[in-house]
């Protein structure tokens, strides 16, 4: 996704060791046999995936009791990661999956002494860039997505307790060699005996152009016996391709089993060409495998609305979302730190209303890991042009409270392990 698979020169540089242009993605963790298992001080409190500033922007898994006051840093604490990682929680296990040459995924959980430690690891060939989980939270789903050409995408089934890969299924999701189109999945949503995989249709050249941006596509598979082909592909032309590059929450499931998907279509979110359809939310009702034709939450045209860049389910039919207040920042600008036009909102999925979260400034956020909801509150990390802070959002009242200062670049996610 982000920095991987650039020009071959960069790959050659890293392998031939001749030019030192890229920051070095590195070798593996210390092994359990040789050294004491690395832990953080305590798992009570909130665990966070923390990224520091400068140079290689190293990442650490840290824990802290009070994240609303003072400062958060990795000074002398935290489990050191070997590079940029995706973080995905399943129940009380946190998976950290690497990128580029850091081709390893590890699972972390709290041990008998209440300390976070590594439970297991496995390696993969191509970076795992999309994640999901089974209903019973015993299986992590992860998918390798090679970007160019017509090869298989590999879906991994990982046992959450042992952190062992049980099975790998290869599937193309969708492809058309005549039109030179391949699928880029934007969620892995399991519900009952079905797996829903929304996707973008991308040019097979691997340049992330979206020639079919004006329709929402979802591939529907059987679960857990995921086959090489989906049962069917459902479409909806009211809005654009579902999901955004790098976000795992193209689809979310509400308490009542309804599935909601978001579509963005903005140039700033990487769509080229941008979609002409409004950005909004579709629904697949509980028990159905088709889009609900009577439901379309047109977020773009709603009061306080705009193009949705990310969302996550909270509780009681509410979701938290980031909305782009405009789409004039340029291609992929929502992934950078030059344009700060994302605002935090609470969506009422049933009432179809958008409520701005108070006290949270406009910011830029390129990647978030799934959110932690606790006692009617949710935590986010908000980075503006010059500051990074934790914010606590009260779901019912959509009020934000500024919390601790982040002595670093960002916190990718908050977890309770």
């Amino acid at each position: 996704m982000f920095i991987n698979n650039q020009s071959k020169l960069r790959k050659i540089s890293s392998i031939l060791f001749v030019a030192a242009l890229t920051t070095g993605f590195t070798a593996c963790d210390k092994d359990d046999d040789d050294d004491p298992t690395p832990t953080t001080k305590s798992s009570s409190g909130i665990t966070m995936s923390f990224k520091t500033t400068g140079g290689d922007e190293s990442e650490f898994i840290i824990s802290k009791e009070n994240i609303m006051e003072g400062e958060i840093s990795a000074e002398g604490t935290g489990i050191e990661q070997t590079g940029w990682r995706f973080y995905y929680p399943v129940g009380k296990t946190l998976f950290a999956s690497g990128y580029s040459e850091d081709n390893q995924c590890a699972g972390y959980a709290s041990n008998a002494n209440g300390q976070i430690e590594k439970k297991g690891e496995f390696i993969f060939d191509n970076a795992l860039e999309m994640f999901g989980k089974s209903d019973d939270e015993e299986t992590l789903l992860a998918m390798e997505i090679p970007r160019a050409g017509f090869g298989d995408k590999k879906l991994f089934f990982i046992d959450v307790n042992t952190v062992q890969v049980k099975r790998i299924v290869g599937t193309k999701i969708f492809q058309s060699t005549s039109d030179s189109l391949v699928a880029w999945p934007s969620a892995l949503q399991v519900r009952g005996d079905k797996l829903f995989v929304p996707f973008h249709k991308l040019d097979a050249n691997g340049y992330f152009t979206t020639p079919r941006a004006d329709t929402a596509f979802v591939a529907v598979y059987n679960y857990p016996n995921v086959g090489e082909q989906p049962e069917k592909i459902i479409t909806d032309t009211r809005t654009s391709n579902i999901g955004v590059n790098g976000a795992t929450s193209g689809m979310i499931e509400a308490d009542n089993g309804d599935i909601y998907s978001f579509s963005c279509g903005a140039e700033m979110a990487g769509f080229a060409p941008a979609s002409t359809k409004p950005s909004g939310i579709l629904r697949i009702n509980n028990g159905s495998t088709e889009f609900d034709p009577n439901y379309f939450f047109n977020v773009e045209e709603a009061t306080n609305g705009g193009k949705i860049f990310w969302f996550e389910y909270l509780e009681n039919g509410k979701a938290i979302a980031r909305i782009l207040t405009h789409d004039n920042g340029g291609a992929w600008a929502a992934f950078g730190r030059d344009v700060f036009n994302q605002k935090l909102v609470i969506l009422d999925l049933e009432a179809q209303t958008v409520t701005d979260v108070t006290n949270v400034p406009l910011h830029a956020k390129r990647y978030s890991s799934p959110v932690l909801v606790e006692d009617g509150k949710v935590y986010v990390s908000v980075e503006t042009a010059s500051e990074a802070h934790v914010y606590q959002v009260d779901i019912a009242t959509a009020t934000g409270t500024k919390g601790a200062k982040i002595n670093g670049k960002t916190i990718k996610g908050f977890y309770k392990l």
Partner: protein
Amino acid sequence: MLRTFFQPNKFLYLILLPFIIVSCINGFGQNRNRVTISGKVVDKKNNPIPGLSIYIKGLNKGDVSNANGQYKIENIISDTAFHLTISGIGYQTQSKEVKPGGSTDLTVNFEMKKGQYNLSEFNVVGKSNAEELRETGYNVNVLETKELKNLSTDINQVLQTTSGVNIRQAGGLGSGFKLSLNGLSGNQVRYFIDGIPMESFGSSLSLNNYPVNLIDNIEVYKGVVPISLGADALGGAINITSAYRKKSFLDVGYTVGSFNTHRGSINGQYANKEKGYFARVTSFINYSDNNFKMYDVPLYDLELGNYEGDIDVRRKHSEYSSGMVKAEVGLFDKKFADRISLSFTKSLNRKNYQHPDNNIKRVFGHFHSRNNTTLLSATYEKRFGKLAITAYALGGQIIEEVIDTSSYKYNWAGESIRRDEDDQRGELYDRRSWLEITDKVFRSSAQAVYTIDQNHELAASYSQNYTTRSGTDYVDEFSTSFQSPSYINKTILGGSYTYKPNSKRWEVSVFAKEYLYNGNIVTTDSQDEEVEENIDLSNTGYGFTSRYFAGEHFQFKASFERALRLPESHEILGDGIYVNPNPQLLPENSYNGNLGLRFRTSIAENWDFRSDLNTFIRSSNDFIRFRPMGPFGQYENISNVRSTGIEGGFEIRYNSFASLNANATYQNITDQTKKDEGLENVNYNSKIPNVPYFFANARFGIKPFHKETDGNLSFYWSTRYVHEFFLTWENLGSAESKHVIPSQLTHDLEAEYSLKDGKYNFSLSVNNLTNNIVYDNFRIQKPGRAIYFKIRYLLQ
């Protein structure tokens, strides 16, 4: 494209014009005789005195008396009388007036009287070239390879032992490496061979497989680089030199050793002094299985990728082979040239990779790379009285292939499975590929040095480096890397002025460099339209060097340069795919300062002691880094780094019986970037991660039974220490979880036996005597204990 390259450069004409005029007046049309002056230097008891300088002021010619007290100064052209002066530590300086008569050679002998060292007669000419260079104002280490030619060493292994230099290798013979000089590394350090830039010469010519038998000296310029080495050297320059000799010789060596290593080298020349021509061949051949043992490497299941534990295993698929032949023919001592030559170089290599250089979790069974380099060059040197001119031109083609075509997947246990039909993956890349990148280079340079008189000297230099790169992938139809043609042309102009007073006690030199840079890339955008990117920039660098002799024993030096590294082609022009162009990209720049102290003394005519101490600062800005924006991105000037440090070394010799030398380097390299994309950088002033900051070397040699001719036996013990350092920021993360590159201490032992005054030589080396597990990089192991045996034949 060519039109832009060949455009006449006005600057060039302005600078060279005065020299051209002067040379016309001085050089041609006069019939002059060349004579040789030789003789013997003895003391009152008629014992020969070696090591004294005999020189001719104003003509810049001289010699040093050899072990038999003899000296010879050749090629003296003079109509008028001149002074022949002899001086050296512990003896009274003498000067004799010499009147050359016609074309007869002269003999002038000296009988020396002991006396106080007279500074006013101090003169650099006549010393060995290496010592001369060490005494200049540059912070320079000159490594003489004479003592090392019986051992099987590469240039990198020698560079590794000098202060300020740290080389990190990813394996055995031929493996990838990263050399850092006072904290600056990679393409911030430039390499030269006899003054010709080695940039892009290909992996087969890189210094990790280039034997020391083929060269004489290695000059390491730290932070401040003379204008004669025309390149954008931000951190410094390394120049490997072969002394130009006008006699025939032959040096053939062969090494066999651990890991099925076989290495050979030939360095031979036929020179005909009467007719003034020579033919030279240098060649090397290398092979190694590199199958050293790896300890505790992780084993993962081939089907699913689950971790199964660590194993110890001998490497496979790590073979390296390379070969080079360079043939040179030329003329010397002609009217139109002191030396002119033409040479042709061909080199090849093949490198099998067991794993990527920075990751041992991924294992290969077939992945490899190949290089094929062809170079043609011409050099020219001529001295016209006070003006000396040197020039070279070089053209070449360098092809580098990376082959990732296997459908198999491997692990450390040597197991493999075949991937599915639908799996397009190679061993490293997500699509199988066979990428061939071709660079075509053309370089030229002209240097002029004009000695106005014994106090003033002017120099000018012009260097140009044109590179065009193109690529093809024979297997991956979706790869368009380097299919967009691009070229970069760098031109560097330099000028310097040097002053030294009559006493020659001190010397100051100031210089300026102008960097001119133009380039072009043509790509196609997503609408299949052609897009052209052009750049045309200029930048200025400047600096000074100075030195001062305080008394007989001490020398002080200070030097400074504002140095630059011009952006690489893909950094500024993009690559037409994932890297966007950034025409606003500035060169990386650095303010480099050095302060040095040298000390030397002899005690009781048996002990010789030398030492040097240097402190340095490299205040660097605008380091170019890739800033991603989703899957795309561009290179920007992102970070600032400051490196300060101290390095020092000493050498003690007891006659020719024993020697000890040691050095140590401490460098504090910190992140000086205040903000990271607008946010306060919490690691401001912290030590930059993943860079070693303290290392030391020592070498002890002993020649227990010293004989003049037959049967010389020597033993050497070398040791190297690198202090531990961390993969990420030192103060972040819990202590147990930190990834550390542990401290390294390795020892090597060597024994050498020479017969017939160095004609036949045998040596046995044991490297990494204690079989330590050695890492230069996190978890990337290097070979354990290794034994090598070498025979060498030297005819001179």
